[in-house]
């Protein structure tokens, strides 16, 4: 068996050099002239960017490790994207906002605590390895939250809804863990959640 994995690999995970694809249905194809990204919910004034506007937002390059609940991990993946902090600077957040739902083309949703996507912990990836993010990997834009299992990194993301009380998303209501911290191995319902 494979042993002596780097300490960057969470329990129960194995390393892959491929970039596997997982999704529940067909890959949505939204033309860029119909694409927009929105922040709504518990904010004073919702905000929306169309593709051309989104492209003009400041981007950063991120090198992150990703961990899929189906057991593969991939180290040092390289993305270009817009920090969620940058996006949230455009809205005034209601103090009651504690959670966020990411919503996507195709109807997929996923939930997480708001503070787990702040302070540099999440970005909207639009390039992978220096090229536009391919549709099967979530392009044109994917939420990337490296600290949580990769299903939280919602493909085809179209916006974030800020909410007060937590609400399970798609996989979270189908037996997967509500939180999804790979280092605590929070894979399925009932797995350790602090």
């Amino acid at each position, binding site marked *: *068996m*494979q*042993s002596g994995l780097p300490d960057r690999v969470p*329990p*129960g995970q*194995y390393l*892959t050099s*491929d970039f*596997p*694809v*997982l*999704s*529940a*249905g*067909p*890959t*949505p194809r939204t033309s860029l002239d119909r694409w927009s990204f929105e922040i709504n919910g518990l904010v004073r004034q919702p905000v929306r960017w169309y593709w051309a506007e989104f492209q003009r937002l400041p981007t950063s390059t991120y090198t992150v490790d990703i961990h899929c609940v*189906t*057991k*593969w991990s991939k180290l040092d993946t390289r993305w270009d994207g817009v920090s969620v902090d940058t996006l949230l600077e455009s809205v005034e957040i209601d103090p009651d906002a504690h959670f966020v739902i990411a*919503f*996507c*083309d*195709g*109807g*997929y949703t996923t939930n997480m605590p708001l503070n787990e996507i702040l302070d540099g912990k999440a970005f909207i990836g639009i390039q992978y390895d220096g090229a536009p993010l391919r549709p*099967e990997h979530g392009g044109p834009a994917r939420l990337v939250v490296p600290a949580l299992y990769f299903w939280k990194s919602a493909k085809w993301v*179209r916006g974030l809804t800020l909410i007060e009380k937590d609400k399970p998303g*798609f*996989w979270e*209501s*189908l*037996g997967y863990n509500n939180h999804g911290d790979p280092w605590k191995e929070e*894979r*399925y*319902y*009932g*797995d350790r959640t602090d």
Partner: protein
Amino acid sequence: METELIKEEVLPRILEWQISTVVKVRQETQSVKTFTLALPNWTPHRAGQHYDVRLTDPDGYQTQRSYSIASSPEQKGEIELTVERLEEGEVSTYLHDVLIIGDQVELRGPIGGYFVWEAHMGGPLLLVAGGSGIVPLMAMIRHWCAVQSNSPVRLLYSSRTYEDIIYREELERLRLEYSGMEVFHTLTREHPQGWDGYTRRIDIQMLEEVAKPFGSNLKAYICGPTALVEDVANGLVSLGIPAKQIRTERFGPTGVP
């Protein structure tokens, strides 16, 4: 946003690890075996779900993989896992090369609530598989047979060669036994003389031929390597099947053929 993925509410249940016992090993093809495992805490699964298998070496190093359940929920007290041996696979090589009847395997499940089909969900049912992607679809077929579902089912199954067709004899037998079931094979690498099935990768024309009699109300389940799943799912959308009626699962350890 425009469409809502249809999901079925499932009662959450905490998944505990349990120790199963190998009661049968069957060689399906040269690189594929089916392991029948007796479970102390068996619960009925939904066809399409999987189990996680965990191996622990003497030093305490643990590794896990997910394997689709091949058996129907009507086969009580045990599950069948059909596993392809991957040269680089640290779990599949162990299962294939080491495991024998009477051995114990740690696992937990059943897991997964979207890529599932149960008789009450109805049809018509279009199942499309590539290689070992047949496994969760076989659970659906076996469930379909066990409950004598009225929904017509069609399987389109892509394999490299005739010898690589998993469950070949059982599929042939079921096809003859159940009038509501039709099976279409395609062989992409080589085919025996006199082969009357398809002999190319699944394309739009093949999909149209197989899916057409079902109209646009069909429920599609696609499982296989990423390229096949992408092609088939996109193809069905272009044939007018609403995306929300198409469920996909990528197969293999990394989802790459």
